[in-house]
């Protein structure tokens, strides 16, 4: 295995040194189809066999009937029985420019200072597609709704891409609209993605996915204007023929499909843009479409020095952006402050509509009745082929006497453009004069100490409680230990109940026996004097004797014998000594 890898590595190292005799060099020109229609593309390959390097890139003779676009270069190498064969393939996408039968080729290339030629191929270019539309997988088309518009008249350019195959890497080049004013369709519909709308249509019983881009364009000059074809480069995914999916992974990775590169184009257009006809009244206007004008005042009466807003709104369908501000002929006693015009456009279904609003702040300086004259807007209506005028009626306003002080300080409703505050000097911020909450240095020091102390105390409390809790848990978990620990407490409680005046031998004996029983985890009530030697080996002989003595005296006293009385103090004393020994 290692030897094989070594050989392969050795061959790879030698590859750059392999030279191929120039005698074996050949050049071949290949196309994927001998017939093509206008608007479709051919795939063309120039294969250089027998050489890897070349002096000049191949040139292909096509008599100007085709447009050639390079789509990359690939290299191949084959080693068969020690013979090395190298290939270089230059790929091109070819677009026919006119219909007819044309020869492509020969291709020429210079290798090692020697020129090599390829074969030629004949291609037939038809007007329509070689295939009817319903048999094709993709096609595109462009339309213009009016080839003879007036200058500034809105027309609609529509590009449609029809597809019934999966596509990828699409790149669209629309014509250059440099001689037009362009408005994009901005309508927000559910089937819009980016600047295109998508829908499904059925043509002759065949369903298609259609992507549509619409642009509203306004020609800005008269005469012949040509619109170049729109081109769309894309790859369509075709299912590989023969065989099932190799694996789920290959299906997941899309290896069951091959991509076929295509280039589609639409037809070009030539527009004949007409100038607007001369008006009999000598009126000149740039507006083409249908427009309406109206004017309003924010108040019907006002006092001297007060302000009001005069609004002129011009709206309609057409070249809204070309609307100029109306000429205002107002008395000099009305101060006018002009605001920036506001344009609201709406482009929907290939139609530009909207309004342009002009606002003026008016401040009357004198009292009396004033009249805002009527506003006329003249436009050319391409539907009726005539000039029309929309008129906003005149408006009267009554100015009453106002306060004189307002006259010089009147504030228009529309504020003039703001100016940056002028910096006249620079300085520090002022000193602090408020009541001083000065603190002594010791305060700061102790503040940190106190804070830290609180933290440490919390830590200590936590650990103390943790230790306490663990011990408590341990005790709870062991009943024997608990019984041992509580033995003395139980004993003390029992002794406290004994009546000292009476002869209570039995009670005293019981208390002692139960105490010993608790300490030894046995049943103390069943303990007898004879059991003691075996049960209390850990007790000192002296204390053992004392315990034995007490129990014997109690036994004798209980059964009527003469015995010395056992006092509570004597009992507690001996049990305390026992407790120490048990600990």
């Amino acid at each position, binding site marked *: 295995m290692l030897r094989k890898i070594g050989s392969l590595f050795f061959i790879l190292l030698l590859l750059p040194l392999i030279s191929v005799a120039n005698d074996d060099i050949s050049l071949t020109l290949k196309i994927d189809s001998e017939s093509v229609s206008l608007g479709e593309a051919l795939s063309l390959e120039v294969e250089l066999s027998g050489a890897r390097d070349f002096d000049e890139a191949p040139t292909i003779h096509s008599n100007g009937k085709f447009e050639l676009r390079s789509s990359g270069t690939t290299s191949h190498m084959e080693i068969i029985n020690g013979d090395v064969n190298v290939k270089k393939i230059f790929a091109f996408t070819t677009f026919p420019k006119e219909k007819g039968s044309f020869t492509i080729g020969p291709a020429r290339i210079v290798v090692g200072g020697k020129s090599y030629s390829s074969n030629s191929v004949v291609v037939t270019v038809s007007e329509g597609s070689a295939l009817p539309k319903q048999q094709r997988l993709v096609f595109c088309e462009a339309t213009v709704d009016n080839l003879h518009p007036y200058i500034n008249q809105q027309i609609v350019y529509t590009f449609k891409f029809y597809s019934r195959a999966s596509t990828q890497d699409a790149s669209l080049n629309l014509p250059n609209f440099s001689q037009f004013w362009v408005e994009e369709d901005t309508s927000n519909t559910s089937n819009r993605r980016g600047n295109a709308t998508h829908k499904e249509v059925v043509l002759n019983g065949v369903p298609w996915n259609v992507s549509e881009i619409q642009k509203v364009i306004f020609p800005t000059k008269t005469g012949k204007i040509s619109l170049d074809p729109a081109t769309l480069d894309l790859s369509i995914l075709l299912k590989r023929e023969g065989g099932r999916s190799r694996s789920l992974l290959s299906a997941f990775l899309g290896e069951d499909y091959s991509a076929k590169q295509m280039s589609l184009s639409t037809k070009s257009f030539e527009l004949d843009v007409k100038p607007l006809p001369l008006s009999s009244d000598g009126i000149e206007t740039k507006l083409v479409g249908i427009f309406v004008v109206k004017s309003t005042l924010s108040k019907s009466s006002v006092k001297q020095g007060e302000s009001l807003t005069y609004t002129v709104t011009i709206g309609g369908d057409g070249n809204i952006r070309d609307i100029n501000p109306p000429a205002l002929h107002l008395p000099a006693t009305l101060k006018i402050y002009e605001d920036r015009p506001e344009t609201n456009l709406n482009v929907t279904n290939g139609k530009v509509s909207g309004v342009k609003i002009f606002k003026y702040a008016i401040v009357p300086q004198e009292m009396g009745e004033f009249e805002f004259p009527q506003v006329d807007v003249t436009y050319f209506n391409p539907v009726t082929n005539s000039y029309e005028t929309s008129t906003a009626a005149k408006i009267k306003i009554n100015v009453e006497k106002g306060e004189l002080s307002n006259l010089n300080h009147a504030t228009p409703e529309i504020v003039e453009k703001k100016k940056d505050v002028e910096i006249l000097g620079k300085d520090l911020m002022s000193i602090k004069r408020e009541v001083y909450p000065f603190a002594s240095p010791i305060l700061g020091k102790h503040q940190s100490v106190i804070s830290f102390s609180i*933290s440490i105390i919390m830590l200590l409390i936590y650990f103390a409680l943790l230790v306490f809790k663990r011990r408590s848990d341990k005790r709870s978990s062991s009943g024997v230990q608990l019984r041992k620990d509580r033995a003395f407490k139980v004993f003390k409680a029992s002794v406290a109940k004994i009546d000292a005046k009476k002869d209570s031998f039995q009670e005293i004996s019981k208390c002692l026996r139960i105490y010993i029983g608790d300490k030894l985890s046995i049943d103390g009530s069943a303990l007898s004097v004879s059991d003691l030697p075996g049960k209390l080996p850990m007790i000192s002989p002296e204390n053992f004797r004392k315990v034995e003595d007490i129990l014997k005296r109690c036994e004798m006293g209980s059964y009527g014998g003469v015995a010395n009385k056992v006092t509570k103090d004597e009992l507690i004393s001996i049990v305390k000594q026992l407790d120490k020994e048990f600990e």
Partner: protein
Amino acid sequence: MRIVLLLLLLFALLPIKLFGDDKINHELFFRAHEAYDHGLYDEAITLYPKNIMDGQLLYNLGNFYFKKGEIGNSIFYFKIAKRLIPRDADLNFNLDYARKQVKDSLEDKRSVIHKLVDSSLLSFIDTIIIFTLFSVLFFSLSILLLYFKNEWLIWPRRVCLPLFVLSLFNVYLSYNQQNANFGVVLAANANVYSGVGKGDVVLFELHEGTEFSVNDKIDISEERWYEIGLVDGKKGWIKSASVRTLL
């Protein structure tokens, strides 16, 4: 448990004794401000106490020195005030303003942590208080968890733990910054040398108001020298006569 309660009570009462109001001579401040208003900056500086570590007082001192035309001293006091009242907008404005008057322009090549700590809006005391709050919260939750195993206590405690550790780290950084020695050039021009010997050369020249950190100090022939470091990484030795340092 009784001991714990007793300790808590003791600490609750402690601040009452420690936080007693110190007597401050307000009249002195009033006179100093009056002198300042009349442009008598020397008098205002003389009247102001210099040993009280109070942010507002030090801020005012910085203003007095600035008005007097001593940018170095002004920056010195503003910087100390910033350690105490780092969020004061007036102080930050004045410190920036004073720094703009300094001739030397230095590119700050310090680490991000250094820059963050330097521009922190928390004083050392603030960091301690935050740490205390988190520690109290964390240990309170821990104590409650000893007796009540409750989901509503476990998660807050888990959240509190990293905050508690971070706040402790913040205290550490703030402590280092609080105790870092720094200085400001007071002389119009000051040479920075490669060493303190006679044969050592002048590395660069600093101007009034330039700030530096003090790495070391040495006394030679009754003259003190500081080893200083600039934010752009330059280092050297400077005579104490031309600078003012914190420690």
